[in-house]
């Protein structure tokens, strides 16, 4: 991924002014955001898939990203932990800061960023290793050597991911023997074991049945106590149930961003209203 630097200066964190005459993007100036996104553009080859995104992600809140397929919502959260680096011939322009630190700063390595901003993917993707090893791996690469500590932290994160009771007798079995919903909770456990500050969920329930989905949603509400959460979802009811803030993306643009209640009850933009009432998408 290439970064186009239009502004050679360091990002100016004091500027909060955003041109938004309709006040569709509500940014709370009084709050210090966990992640601040300013004028973010993203290109695949020559196609611009994100246009001038401005938004704040607040600490220990759940921010939902909604929008129809291809609107750029997955692209957006993949930039937040720089998984987008792996996309060939892509370019990014603009600023993103994690607690006032520019994530594109050459001195801020993507490896370090990803330890602080974890990710749970659309399809459960446990490693073809044992349940325990799935969690231990992340701890080991993060420098935890003591096997007693690894065990303790693995158990703690399995408990926090509400999976421990179901798997405590078979930690040595293959993770692939778990059901889809259990696999996804294992992926969450694996992610929180390394104690990130932010967790990105990329449509975590897309391949799960309603019961597993309900469990994951419950879990997200619980995890909110400890982590800042961003969740991409196709399911508007889900966004309404779990999130504090909602951002509506359409064709690479951020159409509306506000408290979830406001977005769903009294959207500022006609397109948001059309989308959430099911008129398209």
């Amino acid at each position: 991924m290439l970064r186009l630097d239009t502004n050679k200066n360091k990002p100016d964190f004091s500027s909060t002014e955003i041109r938004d005459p309709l006040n569709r993007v509500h940014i709370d100036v009084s709050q210090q955001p966990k992640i601040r996104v300013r004028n973010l553009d993203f290109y695949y080859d020559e196609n611009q898939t994100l246009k001038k995104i401005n938004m704040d992600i607040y600490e220990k809140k759940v921010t939902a990203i909604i929008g129809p397929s291809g609107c750029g919502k997955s692209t957006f959260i993949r930039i937040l932990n720089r998984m987008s680096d792996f996309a060939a011939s892509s370019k990014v322009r603009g600023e993103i800061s994690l607690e006032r630190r520019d994530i594109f700063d050459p001195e801020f390595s993507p490896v370090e960023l990803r330890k602080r901003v974890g990710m749970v993917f659309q399809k459960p993707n446990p490693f073809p290793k044992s349940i325990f090893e799935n969690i231990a791996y992340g701890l080991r690469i993060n420098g935890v050597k003591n096997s007693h500590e690894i065990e303790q932290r693995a158990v703690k994160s399995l408990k926090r991911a509400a999976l421990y009771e179901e798997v405590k007798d078979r930690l040595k079995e293959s993770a692939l023997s778990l059901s889809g919903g259990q696999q996804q909770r294992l992926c969450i456990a694996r992610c929180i074991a390394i104690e990130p500050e932010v967790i990105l969920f990329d449509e975590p329930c897309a391949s799960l049945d309603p019961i597993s989905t309900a469990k994951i949603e419950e879990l997200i509400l619980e995890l909110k106590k400890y982590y800042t959460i961003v969740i991409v979802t196709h399911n508007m009811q889900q966004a309404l149930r779990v999130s504090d803030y909602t951002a509506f993306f359409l064709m690479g643009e951020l159409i509306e961003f506000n408290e979830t209640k406001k977005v769903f009850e009294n959207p500022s933009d006609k397109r948001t209203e059309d989308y959430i009432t099911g008129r398209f998408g």
Partner: protein
Amino acid sequence: MKGKGEKFREKLIEYILFALSLSAIIFLAGIVLTLLKEAAPAFRDTGFLNMIVSKDWYPTYEPPDFGMLPLIAGSFMVTAIALMVSVPLGLCSAVYISELAGKKEKILLKPFIELLSSIPSVVYGFWGIVFLAPAIQRHFDLSSGYCALTAGIVLGIMSSPIIASLSEDALNCVPRSFKEASFAMGADRLETLINVTIPAAASGIITSIILGTGRIIGETMVVLMLSGGAAIITLSPMEPVRPMTSAIAAEMGEAAFQTPHYHSLFAIAIILFIITFILNMAAEKLAGKYRLKLGSHR
């Protein structure tokens, strides 16, 4: 509507193709039967076990000795040396091409690896005679450069493309989601490669090594030209050896038709056939298991 004639023609073509595809089975059966028939007298006279475990191969002495152990040992020694060369060479190129190389490097490297596998074995043998054998003779101060080491190195280079291309396929089949999961947890490329990608491709990689071994053990021309040809049991790679294939190739022309010597050469062929058959079965089995393991994740 198709005419009756046309229908008949189509059926006929189908039957002809079916018969031709059956020919593989017929040829295999024919070869096995011939081998068994010609080897039977040797096994009857000397005994199967006796033949495998006795240490003397002097087929032209009076009385002759048909102990295959030195030949089997020679094959294993050469194969082991070849694997020491081909496994690191093949695996490293596979890992580089599949995980690290950019598009340009891939386009440059892949044809060369394929070219390496298309060179006739006699050319490899020739290179061994002209270049490697004298070099090894000089370097280790040997009386002759034709030894297990020379043959093994050449066989290793020769079989590395098989291991490289099959391992590369296996690495390419590792779902991207595994690697993504690893990167998302803050692993770097090396950690991901060692802990996630290679283990996930392990059975495919092992399959490639087994198939490479089959190729090495059955290769004739290179060992005939380079291994030195002495039917002795040794642990030193600097000694000449006489692997099974080179014994058959070298002696078949001299052995008189239907003599004990002639039959015992067929017996060697049977042993060789059994070894490669087992290797192929093992590879097939592992490959199946591997597909099963990753299947749900494609």
